């Protein structure tokens, strides 16, 4: 690892001031950043340790009945917080599906939002081509290994996927990211926080330089009784998703009043399956309708040479996750 300088910030304003220095990055849990630094992918000059910032490591209710999760809450603590488990079990499930117990004990909620892709060409600097690591150098994955890569929303510049489980659940729950900078505070809807690669794949998020994530706000819990996070991966645990589905429903008997469906492992950002949501909403949940909605969700899929299987896998995963969320024992398509 290259030499770095280091300071421990004690409050948000001092962290923000420290971040003005070129080459500075915030470090939280460090589980992704230090990994990338060891590989030479990230090369900060100065680290500002934000893990001791006061007040950002708590979870509390909001006046509207929602929940505020501080950016420094560790993934394991968020997963096991009583209010998260009771009111947002979808989010708890997503946290618990990610990484390993040790990593969840380290990783922060803010850091999880900032996770970078696990594309092997991005991670391995021995490959000269990666537009995300070296803008303009090309994409080795499009004609190379792309089994785990995107089937939706990719560009000719980048086919990488976002690796987060948490963010997929947050997308289904319409969470809002709170950020601070020396200019003040602002909020970013989770679905606008991560971006598609387009012609700037080196930019993962809409976070601006000098901004610090302070919290994630959840709307009041509407889906506590009918939600499910399904993660499909190559091994039973401790692996990134090939496909994941966060399904959150409001049900009137067997009729779907509202459906929120977000997909992971398929795009550069958590992917809301809006068409499928519309097809399910206001109708009784039937196998036929569910299969049709799942197929429609993949209507614009453009698989690569190595990941055609993901199109059907995603459809089956949607069917299964929605059925689970609805409490149906019903079949996998």
């Amino acid at each position, binding site marked *: 690892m290259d030499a770095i300088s280091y300071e421990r910030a004690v409050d948000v304003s001092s962290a923000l001031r420290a971040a003005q220095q070129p080459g500075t990055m915030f470090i939280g849990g460090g589980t992704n950043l230090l*990994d990338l630094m060891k590989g030479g992918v990230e090369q900060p000059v100065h680290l500002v340790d934000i893990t001791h910032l006061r007040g950002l490591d708590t979870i509390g209710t909001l006046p509207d009945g929602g929940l505020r999760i501080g950016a420094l809450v560790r993934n394991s603590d968020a997963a096991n917080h009583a209010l998260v488990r009771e009111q947002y079990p979808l989010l708890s499930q997503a946290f618990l599906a990610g990484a390993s117990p040790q990593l969840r004990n380290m990783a922060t909620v803010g850091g999880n939002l900032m996770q970078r892709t696990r594309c092997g060409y991005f991670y391995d600097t021995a490959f000269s081509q990666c537009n995300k690591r070296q803008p303009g150098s090309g994409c080795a994955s499009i004609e190379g290994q792309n089994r785990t890569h995107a089937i939706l929303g990719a560009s000719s510049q980048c086919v990488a996927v976002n690796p987060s489980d948490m963010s997929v659940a947050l997308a289904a729950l319409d969470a809002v990211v709170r950020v601070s900078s020396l200019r003040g505070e602002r909020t970013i809807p989770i679905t606008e926080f991560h971006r598609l690669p387009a012609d700037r794949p080196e930019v993962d998020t809409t976070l601006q330089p000098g901004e610090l994530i302070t919290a994630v706000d959840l709307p009041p819990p509407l889906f506590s009784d009918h939600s499910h996070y399904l993660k499909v991966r190559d091994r039973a645990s401790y692996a990134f998703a090939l496909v994941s589905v966060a399904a959150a429903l409001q049900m009137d008997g067997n009729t779907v009043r509202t459906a929120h469906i977000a997909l992971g492992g398929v795009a550069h950002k958590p992917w809301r399956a809006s068409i499928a949501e519309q097809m399910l909403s206001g109708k009784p949940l039937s196998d036929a309708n569910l299969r049709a909605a799942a197929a429609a969700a993949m209507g614009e899929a453009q698989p690569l040479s190595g990941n055609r299987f993901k199109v059907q896998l995603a459809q089956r995963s949607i069917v299964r996750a929605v059925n689970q969320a609805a409490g149906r024992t019903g079949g996998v398509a």
Partner: protein
Amino acid sequence: MSRNRVPPGSDDEPNATPNKPSRRRFLQSAAAAATVGVAPHVHAQNQPAAVPPSEAPRAPEPPRPVTLNVNGRAYTLQLEPRVTLLDALREYAGLMGTKKGCDRGQCGACTVMVEGRRINSCLTLAVMHDGEAITTVEGLASNGVLSPIQRAFIEHDAFQCGYCTPGQLCSATAMLSEFGNGTASTVTADVRMHPAQLSDDEIRERMSGNICRCGAYANIVAAVRAVHDGSTGNA
């Protein structure tokens, strides 16, 4: 490995062994004695140290005193900020029990407990844990008596080569405590409920952050189960 990237002659050169106290460790001990009183001021001293980036190779950041309370003993080490907790424990404190496997958070061999929580010591900087309490495999036994999980690993033959074992032992120790606190896992049927019993599936999932290349998993599960069921204890 990151070791290859260390500038020649830097303080990160490994030369300490359990059997041969290194020159560096002697110097660290001497430095520790001299710097204990200085440690609280380290943050203030750090402020002017920040330098703008340049194209030239970066000079190593001067080492600073970092105090780690490891297994009940305070170690004040002179560390560059880039030194991971794992390297601090092994190469600077001389505690070789904690193992470096992948060094990238993918195997769990480096698992230790910090303030009672199990973490991968390879993916965190030692300086971030200044003043914190760390338990390594060397700290599981007390007064020469192995802990229940250590005894169970022996009784159930829960290892072959043993390289992953220190991490497995620390992980299992913390895991049993986590389960006792009612934490859920991804195989818990309903996260809104506390898992009623520690099934083998729960043990496997909760221990999934520790890879055993020898494949001793069946016996690791048996050892963890034995401790959980209380059938090992002082038997």
